[in-house]
C-alpha cells in the first residue's frame, strides 16, 4: 500500500457508500415489487439513470476490490509483489469488463 493506492481506495469507498445504500434499498424494493426477469428488466431497460448509477458503481468497485485484494494477497500469501500486482490488475479488468457487460445487458433496449 502507498499514498496513491490509499487515495484511490478511500475515494472509491466514499463514492460507493451512498451507492451501496441505494443498492440495498433497490434489493428490498425488488423483493416486494417483483424479481422475475421481466419485472427487473422492465425497470432497467432504456434507463440512462440506471446506466449511469451502475456504470459508476462498476468502475468504483473494480478499483476498490482490486486494491483490497492486493492487501490480502501481499499480507496473507507468500506471492511476490510483482505476481500480486499482476493478479489484481487482471482481476480489476475482469471485474470492470464483466460489470460493464452486465450493465449493458440490463440497460440496453
Amino acid at each position, binding site marked *: *500500500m*502507498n*499514498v*496513491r*493506492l*490509499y*487515495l484511490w481506495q478511500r475515494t472509491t469507498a466514499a463514492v460507493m457508500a451512498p451507492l451501496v445504500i441505494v443498492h440495498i434499498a433497490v434489493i428490498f424494493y425488488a423483493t416486494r415489487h417483483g424479481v422475475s426477469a421481466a419485472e427487473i428488466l422492465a425497470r432497467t431497460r432504456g434507463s440512462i439513470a440506471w446506466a449511469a448509477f451502475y456504470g459508476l458503481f462498476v468502475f468504483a468497485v473494480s478499483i476498490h476490490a482490486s486494491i483490497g485484494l492486493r*492487501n490480502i494477497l*501481499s*499480507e*496473507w500469501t507468500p506471492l511476490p509483489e510483482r505476481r500480486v500486482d499482476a493478479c489484481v490488475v487482471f482481476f480489476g479488468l475482469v471485474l470492470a469488463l464483466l460489470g460493464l457487460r452486465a450493465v449493458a445487458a440490463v440497460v440496453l433496449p
Partner: protein
Amino acid sequence: MNTELSVSLWRGAQNGHYETYRVPQRSSQTVLDVVTFVQRHIDPTLSYRFACRVGVCGSCAMTVNGKPRWTCRTHVAKVAGGGKLQIGPLANLPVIKDLATDMQPFFEKWRQARGVFAPTKTRHDAIAQIKPDTPARKTVDAAIECINCGVCYAACDTVRWNAEYLGPAALTRAWTLVNDERDGGNITRLQAIAGAGGCHACHSHQSCQELCPQALNPTAAIAGLKRRTAAAYLKGEITV
C-alpha cells in the same frame, strides 16, 4: 498463600520450546518476579531483560499469556488463570535467547520513518517560543511519551504480516515531529512514510493503542499521518 504457579518459559532461540517450572505464588507478585525467581533459584541459564523494575523503562516487555506487556507491571493474580502462566519473548522480533529479543529491526524502522528532529535554527538564534496549549503542541504532547518498549510492535498483526511495515512506534514518533513547528524535515519525512510499508499499511486493528502501557494512541497518530501524506501527495510535495 502456599500455592504454586505452573510457569512455561520460552527457552532457546527462534527454534526453541517451552519449559515448565514450578514457582511459589506470593502476594503482589509480578510476572517479572516470577521470571527472576526461576533465574535465581531454579535455572541460572535463563536469559531475560529488565532494568528499572518499576514501570518507567520498558525493558521488561514480554509476551504473557499471549499478550505483550511490561512484566514488572503485570500482577500475577490478574493474569494467571488457574495458576498457569505462559511467558515468551516479544513477538515480531528475532529471538536472541529465551526471553530476550533483538530490538535492532525495531530501531532500524524508527530510522527509516525519519523519527529524527531536523533543526531549523542554530545555537546563535533565539530559543523558539512554543506555547503548550496550541493544538499542534497538544498533539505532539499526547504522542511523545514513547519509551520504545516494543509492545505495540509486538502486538501489531500488520507488522507480523507485512515485513516492510514500519510499525506503530516509528510512525507515532514521526507524527510528533510532523507536528513540531521547529522541525524542518517534513517533506523528507512524509516521503519516507508514504511508500510501501508506510502509514497507509495500517488497517486500524488498534492492538497498539489498546496495549500501549503509556496510553499512547498510534492508531490516531497514523490516521493523522495518512491525512498529511495524502495532502502532500495531492499538492505534489511528495511522490510515490
